[in-house]
């Protein structure tokens, strides 16, 4: 794709009025951490479910001085990440990078980078279903009331039922968190492995759900606690194996099937983290 601006379209695709509306929603979201702010989500030239909420947030906050990184499943080279990155390279002529530390804005689907985020960075999450109570209560009017009244009993009951049935909390991704001791929030479908990275994070975390028309946020240095019980504390996934490429034992690993006889290998899901470790090991 060429890097020229798209004729007939505004900088970063969205018109300035729309960006203003989205920025106001973001400000409100930052002011009330974890609260889902309804916003006038637009139809984007990418389908719903492909990250339209995250794309609208990125389009509203990005400027010519930004450096953008886009990841999907932790990797910069998955097709959808490539597609979104080229969308912004094309519509906003923005510099792009795959290096976590270099980026000012990181749009992500399903992962938080392994490298710690810094002050001044913004992490934009793509969110499919923003409502953490949705699968316990299908009605939006009901769940909004439950949030308003801080009526979160159903969530604890659900987690308790998991323990009763399976001996542990059977949620491995999209694991609910409580933000600043007030709102229960969906972290988007990141693995629970990533949940601790949200807590007291130095970067601003913004969440966009395009189809559901909601924006929410975790400002820097905000307390984010994964829900648990005293006798069943929250714990993250671990692997018996190390990354086959860089040997990491502390990153989230993807499993890759290598043959049809049960052969498999494990590699870092964060491709930038993995490549950097390989470079360091090679001494370059």
């Amino acid at each position, binding site marked *: 794709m060429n890097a020229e601006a798209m004729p007939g*379209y*505004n900088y970063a*695709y969205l*018109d300035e009025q729309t960006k203003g509306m989205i920025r106001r929603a973001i400000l409100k979201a930052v002011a009330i951490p974890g609260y889902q702010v*309804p*916003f*006038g*989500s*637009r*139809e*984007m*030239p990418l*389908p*719903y*479910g*492909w990250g*339209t909420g995250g794309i609208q947030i990125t389009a509203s906050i990005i400027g010519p001085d930004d450096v953008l990184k886009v990841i*999907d*499943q932790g*990797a910069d*080279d*998955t*097709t*959808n990440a*490539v*597609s979104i990155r*080229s969308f912004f390279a094309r519509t906003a002529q923005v510099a792009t990078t795959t290096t976590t530390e270099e980026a000012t804005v990181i749009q992500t*689907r*399903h992962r938080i980078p392994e490298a710690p985020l810094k002050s001044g960075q913004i992490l934009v999450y793509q969110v*499919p279903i923003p409502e953490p109570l949705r699968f316990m209560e299908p*009605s*939006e*009017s009901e769940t909004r009331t439950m949030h308003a009244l801080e009526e979160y009993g159903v969530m604890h009951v659900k987690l308790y039922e998991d323990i009763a049935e*399976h*001996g*542990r909390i*059977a949620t*491995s*991704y*999209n694991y609910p968190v409580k933000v600043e001791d007030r709102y229960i929030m969906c972290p988007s*479908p*990141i*693995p*629970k*492995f990533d949940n601790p990275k949200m807590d007291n994070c130095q970067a601003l975390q913004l969440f966009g759900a395009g*189809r559901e*028309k*909601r924006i929410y946020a975790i400002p820097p240095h905000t307390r984010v606690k994964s829900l648990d019980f005293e006798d069943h504390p929250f714990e993250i*996934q671990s*692997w018996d194996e190390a990354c*086959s*490429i860089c040997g990491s034992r502390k990153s989230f*690993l*993807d*499993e*890759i099937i*290598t043959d049809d006889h049960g052969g498999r290998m494990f*590699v870092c*899901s964060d*491709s930038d983290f993995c490549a950097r470790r390989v470079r360091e090991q090679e001494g370059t």
Partner: protein
Amino acid sequence: MYVAVKGGEKAIAAAHRMLARERRGDESVPELSLEQIREQLSLSVDRVMSEGSLYDPHLAALAVKQARGDLMEAIFLLRAYRTTLPRFGYALPVDTSRMHIRRRISATFKDVPGGQILGPTFDYTHRLLDWDLSGHRSAEKDADALVSGEMDGAVEATQEAMPRVLDVLGREGIIESETSGPDSEPGDLTREPLTLPAGRSMRLQNLARADEGFLLAMGYSTQRGFGNSHPFVGEIRMGEVEVEFTPEELGFPVTIGEITLTECETVNQFIGSGDARFTRGYGLTFGQGERKAMSMALVDRSLRAGELGEEVRGPAQDGEFVLYHSDNVEASGFVQHLKLPHYVDFQSELALVRGLRRDSTDKEESHER
């Protein structure tokens, strides 16, 4: 080393080239022109305009062509373009009683002022494949159809004013009057998120953009017992209406164009007893979209169950269910996003399921000991 995830950019570019080739098909067959699509696949164009919420037959034809005839994809293309367009203001409400009628029927009265006009309808065709259409029709045949079509048109030109059937009932006071309700300033669904409970103007906007198949199934479900509203088709009319707009600098309305509309008004289950009166359902589409307009009227009426004090027993009466699931651009995107990579979530679930199995094996083993 595992490299299958690399090269996404090249793969995407190659996929786009293949798509373009498939869209064109066999190059020995002449390429479709937008005019051909607009004129000969006009009902596709109408549906794309309706659900794409943009009245522009030329752009809709382009979208149909670009989408290889996939109407939902075409609707999506049109929507994504529409959302970037500036707003100049609101047109005046169109007056469908002043419609230049091409089709107009009532199922509630044998005859109505202005008469029943079948117009261009599939209704009484026998669904037998017309082999004549499979090859090139003879010029003679086309000319025949054209001439007789013009003669039919002559009748149409002499039409008198055609009051809407429900307005006739309305004068008798036997049907509820159509009011704009408490939300007299209509909202704009494409600018503000849907809030619940949604007012009628928001509901009607949602239904007007809604997927035809979804509305058809919802309307059908009410007929089969999931919230019956006892509908009669008071009137269906299709034809051209003028769109008027008042530019600020002029201060008076000017006609800015003409659009084709299909409108359906249903007469439904009455309320009250001493002052008994029928209730209404309303459906409207761009172009010729009778199936959708009728379905929309059924669903519009169903969604009024709450306000009319009826028991909510079917999905079509549940505003949240209908309004949140009616949009095919949203639905198609979210259903199909499942084909995007979910390695990380699946890996998490794998680890969980393996862990649960290990726990249970451990337990069994300690049991056996």
